[in-house]
């Protein structure tokens, strides 16, 4: 067990970071906000912590706290215009946000180090701390799910006009989901910067955006298991495909297409729904691919 841990330690650590960013992405999606801003939040969090720690000697916990506040503030400001848009347009607007963040990181070279980024960040994170952060995140989301807030998020995703007609102030709840997403994204961005020694704007570009979205869509958008399952697939795939050497990208692509085509809810969600159906022993006739499955998930 220990030798397994030592040989795969970096893989496990990056898996934990991916799970955290996955939860940030999932929170927005399950409240019906089609946001891909997680990469931008993690960039802000990572740079805030890195600059404070390396330039100003701020203690690490305080720097992470500042990152969290920055993430929440920016996501709150962003949630106001975002509430006016729908669907793919939210995706495009958040994509624009990430691109602007990256362009500004490149432009203000004296402050952010430009394309070279910031190096010499002390490495204070290890598997234990990352695991703790992931567990705290899971606990927070699990608690939210047990309150009316979690039910409102599910209602917003399924039909926001119905939610509004039942007296739910939908804009505030959209904002709440988005701020939580920004908070988690910024904190895990900060943790990542305290793990990898140096950060540069490319780390948070199109690929980062696609990576956290892929984790959630592959794993599942509604259940707590989703991001874990998705991040696990994304961590294991490159290892499995190692013998294929240069053709790894082809295998990754094929698996993405196959999983989404045949398990459209994502591996984690489908597993949870299947287990629930088994446990209740009630022959469910409703289609598992339609929103009926969401109702099962919403309790």
């Amino acid at each position: 067990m220990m030798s397994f841990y030592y040989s795969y330690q970096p893989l496990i650590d990056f898996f934990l970071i991916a799970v955290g960013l996955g939860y940030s992405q999932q929170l927005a999606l399950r409240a019906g906000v089609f946001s891909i801003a997680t990469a931008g939040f993690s960039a802000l969090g990572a740079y805030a912590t890195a600059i404070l720690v390396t330039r100003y000697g701020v203690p690490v916990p305080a720097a992470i706290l500042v990152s969290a506040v920055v993430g929440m503030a920016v996501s709150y400001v962003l949630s106001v215009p975002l509430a006016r848009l729908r669907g793919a347009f939210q995706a495009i607007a958040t994509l624009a946000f990430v691109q602007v963040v990256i362009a500004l990181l490149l432009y203000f070279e004296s402050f952010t180090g430009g394309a070279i980024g910031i190096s010499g960040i002390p490495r204070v994170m290890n598997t234990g701390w990352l695991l703790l952060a992931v567990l705290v995140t899971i606990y927070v989301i699990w608690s939210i799910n047990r309150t009316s807030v979690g039910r409102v998020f599910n209602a917003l995703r399924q039909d926001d006009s119905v939610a509004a007609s039942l007296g739910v102030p939908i804009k505030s709840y959209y904002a709440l989901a988005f701020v939580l997403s920004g908070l988690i994204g910024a904190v895990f961005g900060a943790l990542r910067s305290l793990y990898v020694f140096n950060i540069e704007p490319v780390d948070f570009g199109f690929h980062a955006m696609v990576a956290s979205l892929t984790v959630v869509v592959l794993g599942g958008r509604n259940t707590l298991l989703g991001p874990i399952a998705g991040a696990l697939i994304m961590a294991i795939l490159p290892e499995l495909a190692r013998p294929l050497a240069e053709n790894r990208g082809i295998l990754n692509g094929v698996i993405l297409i196959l999983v989404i085509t045949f398990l459209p809810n994502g591996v984690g969600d489908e597993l949870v729904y299947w287990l629930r159906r088994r446990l209740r022993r009630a022959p469910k006739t409703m289609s598992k691919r339609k929103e009926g499955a969401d109702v099962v998930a919403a309790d």
Partner: protein
Amino acid sequence: MLLQQILNGTVSGAIYALFALGFTLIFGVQKLLNLAHGAIFMAGAFIAYYATAQGLPFWFALLLATIATGAISVVVDFVAFRQLRKSGHAEFAAIVTSIGVDLILMNIAQQVSNTKVLSFPFGTFPVKFFSFWGMRISLLQLTILGLVLVLVLALAYYINRTSFGRQVRAVSSNEHASALLGISAAAVYRQTFFIAGALAGLAGVLIGLSFNSIHFMMGEPFLLQAFVVVVIGGLGSLQGAVVAAILIGIVQSLTIAYLSSELSTAIIFALLFVTLLFFPNGLFGRAGNYAGGSRR
């Protein structure tokens, strides 16, 4: 100098328009984001490069690349989108499957080119300059402008005036109702994907020729730009896409010339954000395509 920059911007904007037209056609008809569009664009440049390397004349390589990328795009539709249209979650799922296709195409291109940056041999296209009013324009730029103009007009005629164009518009506004009228949605999707792919491939060849660099990641910045064009021009609006693309080309060449290239990206995406806020329909979108409208 200013006029010269505007002219250069117009030419690159015209090429962006070719790329964005296909993207907006798919987005307008199916409401799906096709993230593999950048890879198809890249494939066009690659096919034309290897065709000319085999000694084929350039005009033939251009034609070959256009048709081949159209065919690739139809295959992409078959592999990545056809199944999803039947399930309810196409909006999210299409993003992931098209990323999958993107990975596959980029991986193949990386293998074929050994991760090298390729360029067309000197003299593939005659190098010739014309001067007027103190500006210089190359024969290549003139050809690009002419070609784009002809293609845009042909596409506009096709969509607005022919029976097939009416079918495309019918399917984009209501797939079920048009199926009742005997229109095959699958055939319409195939044709829109072919046109979109062919336009992207052609744009890839022209970009590869005018910037003289072809590599497996060349599609990505153009894909990001296509988002901006689609939003500023208005969802599914073809003339809007052309105007927005040329506008972006000009803004880009002016900011690069007078400010800096990093700032140019920031300005373009800030422009996108502002447009989404104040003109959610885009500059040319119709009210029916309102971005704030229902998700279903």
